[in-house]
């Protein structure tokens, strides 16, 4: 059975946080990116780049404006990945 994209994105966020951002706590969709995960501008960039590389999507500054939680980020990546899949011939 193929894992839903949302679960794949959450797993990738957890991997990046642990391996690249030295994060040791839990990560759940309801967690706030800034308050709970304590991400600063560099941390957010590392996270964004990691997700772009894994899911072959591009996230912009404008995208970041409405992002508050891990769940918001998952939905954004999911939507972009779907758009990329549609655009592919």
């Amino acid at each position, binding site marked *: 059975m193929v894992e839903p994209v949302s679960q794949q994105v959450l797993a990738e966020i957890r991997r990046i946080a642990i391996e*690249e951002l*030295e994060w040791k706590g839990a990560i759940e969709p309801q967690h706030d990116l800034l308050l709970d995960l304590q991400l*600063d*501008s*560099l*941390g957010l*960039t*590392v996270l*964004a*780049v990691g997700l*772009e*590389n894994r899911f*072959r*999507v*591009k*996230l912009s500054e404008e995208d970041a404006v409405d992002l508050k939680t891990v769940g918001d980020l998952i939905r954004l990546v999911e939507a972009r990945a779907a758009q990329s899949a549609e655009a592919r011939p």
Partner: protein
Amino acid sequence: MHSASEQDTAPFVHAMGRALPPHYASQEQLIAMLRELWATRHFNLERLEELHRAVQVGGRHLALPLEEYPALVTFQQRNDAWIRVATALSEDVVRRALAPAGLRPTDVDHVFFVTVTGIATPSIDARLVNRLGLRDDVKRTPIFGLGCVAGAAGLARAADYLRAFPEHTALVIATELCSLTLQREDLSIPNIIASGLFGDGSACVVLRGARAGQAGPRVVASRSVFYPDTERIMGWDVVDSGFKVVLSAKVPQLVKDHIRGNVDGFLAQHGLKREDVRHWVAHTGGPKVLEAFESALELPTGALGRSWASLREVGNLSSASVLFVLDETLRTAGARPGDWGVVMAMGPGFCAEMVLLRW
């Protein structure tokens, strides 16, 4: 409050020199070269280009021609190139500092050599004894590991020494070849940012004790500040291929949180307030660090103009940066007798160093 005796023994910043390697690359040339490398791992290359443009560096002087960097793979290859270029550049910068001041290498009693971008034993200062013809009783203090703070800290330690030996002349040489530490295979975001920000260069300060020669501003006092439990904010992880950068985005926040209290406390010890300081000489850490200095200290517009210009022209030269800005201040600020100046830098530890100057 500074006492009369403190002032009497305060050494002088007698002269300075700057040297840059001859190989220059604009930021766009460097982006074009790195783009291919980034594409081996990263998908959104425009984002990485923006990171390189956001640091507001126009270009960098490099230790080697651009085409020679890909061949540097091992720590030994990088460090051998570092020793060769650092020795030549340091010799050049000392000659540039001494000659216009009418001093000879044999007038030098103590050499403080600071760096964080390569290692050598005998250290570079020892090699300079032979190349420059320094005296055989010259004292040498090589300092490795202070990083960006070492220009200000070297100035402070040399001034400490000259208070004890007021007839002596000391050199502070800061030589940094950041480009030779670049880990091409490290495509992490901190390393990509570092590869956009740091450049190569060398600065030399000639300091003279109060009884050796009285010209230039006096180093009235200095203050070191250590921030506990901040070891992962900045530094190197030493790996098989060399120095892998540790760089946290928390640096500007640390500046915002602490520098105002640090500077105010330091100045108050000498009966001074921020508004008494006419010349601010800040390390060119990057745009966010300079903005943090400006906002935390409520500096007037243009107070850090020389730091911004230096960042744009040559990038962050680690320990040499603050000395480039100090040299520019000495040459162009039109300082008047009685003016106060503050030199400030921060670096791995995490820590800060402040130096109080009086013209």
